[in-house]
């Protein structure tokens, strides 16, 4: 895996804390797998991670791999750099991706696209795992690109 090339955003943004409740998710991303909470009580997925199932109140929340694809539910393209690391690196595109095969949970990531590319709500996207191997501790982000795009 490449360590520094093909990143959507520049170095210097906050790294994700990989502690506690969300640990299995981050472990999954390191292996190129999308792993989210699935309740052993009612069998439904939920995201983001929480200690209890919001549907059946079971604390027995397992973690399951889900297919790394979805649909763009909404999007935005920031131009104003809200963090010093982003100076000179805007605009970039953020998407909210819905996973219909996982009870419609949604995830936030960057869309890998040209800065002026049109974005279509409902477009099919697939996950692209973006490793940050040099970070301490290393972590992997989940980015998105339009399928067949």
């Amino acid at each position, binding site marked *: 895996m490449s360590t520094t090339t093909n990143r*959507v*955003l520049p170095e*210097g*943004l*906050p*790294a*994700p*804390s*990989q*502690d506690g409740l*969300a640990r299995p998710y981050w472990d999954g991303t390191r292996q190129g797998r999308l792993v989210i909470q699935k309740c052993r009580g009612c069998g439904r997925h*939920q*995201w*983001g*991670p*929480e200690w209890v199932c*919001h549907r059946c109140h079971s604390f027995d929340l397992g973690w399951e791999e889900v297919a790394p694809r979805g649909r763009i*539910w*909404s*999007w*935005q*393209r*920031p*131009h*104003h750099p*809200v*963090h*010093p*690391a*982003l100076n000179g690196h805007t*605009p*970039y595109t*953020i998407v*909210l991706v819905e996973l219909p095969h996982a009870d419609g*949970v*949604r*995830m*936030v*990531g*960057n869309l890998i696209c040209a800065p002026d590319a049109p974005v279509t*709500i409902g477009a099919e996207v697939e996950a692209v795992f973006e490793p940050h191997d040099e970070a301490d501790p290393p*972590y992997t*982000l989940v980015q998105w690109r339009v399928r067949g795009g």
Partner: protein
Amino acid sequence: MSERTLRGKVAIAGVGETTYYRHGQSPDAEFKLALQAILAACRDAGIDPREVDGFASYGDDRSDGPRLAASLGIRELRFSNMHWGGGGGGVAAAVANAGAAVHSGMANCVIAFRSLAQGQFARYGRSRTGAAAVGDDAFLAPYGLMSPAQRFAMKITRFMTDHGIRHEALRAIAMASYHHAQNNPNAVMRGRPLTEEKYDASRWIIEPFHRLFDCCQENDGAGAVLVVPADRAKDLPHKPVYLLGAAQGGHHRSAAPVHNAPDYASAHFKTVAKNLWEMARLGPQDCDVVQAYENFTGGVLLSLVEHGFVDPARANEQLVLENLLVGGTGTMPMNTSGGNLAECYMHGLEMVNEAVRQLRGTAINQVAGANVVAVLGGPMVTPVSSLVVGTEAAL
């Protein structure tokens, strides 16, 4: 059993505010600004500040009630209340919480306030650097999603795309605030009118619906209102402004983590607005004036829709400048002192003060014969809150 309501039970007897400053320009410390606004509200109400026995605020206000009570020599503190949630989501709730305390007999004379000299602390529109992102932010900040504008933008994108609402509707919202501010000597943006050309030429903050003028500024200042039982308000100098309805909260899982609220493209007022109108026994058609909190103009659109002021199918026709102004042909005069965008970003407290002035008949841009005013608090956060206030004629 008697009806459980605040309708007509409590009144705003006094309003106070400081000079409003551009971000970082206050010569006074934030706590001193709070004291100034509170003393002004007491003076306005003709009540000795030592008689105040409670404080209610929101947005993690740094001027804490017990310190205020000690500084002002308050005889007895009976109510101290901080409403959960950031920004101005709690502005109407703070007034309502003060009202609930007064009506329930927990306190007699409660200040609801907001003090903000953000320049003396961290800015909202800039992220902190260095630390690892925890909690929800772990799934957002590494992707460059950090600011309040970014937290809400995708709600607005989705709603406006679904309903075919044009950016010009948001431009009208911004222009109404700037227009009204031009007559207001305490408005930060007085002397800086906003034209269509200036708006259209302003830089993108976030595509597709946030230009510079769609976004609130940051300001320094403080505002306060004094809430007393309705009976008492009758004996005070000003015409009483009655609380007719108040509601706060959010719909089912509106605060779900990582942008997973089931009904996402929302300002979170859907259930709140229903409760508000039920308590007020009024609807949007009964309001003479609307004060709608602008953190971002897209949020105002969502607020107006969810409170029933605007029909999404007709938003492009309803949200035009002429319809939002005082004194013309407008059917929905809005943000009549300049709002968050152009009077002062005092997290909406300035809008409560303006609602009171409209009902007293003393506003700078006065809506003739205003008897009912709605104040829609900060949208898209959770919890949100809104209130309806009115004159005796509206009881």
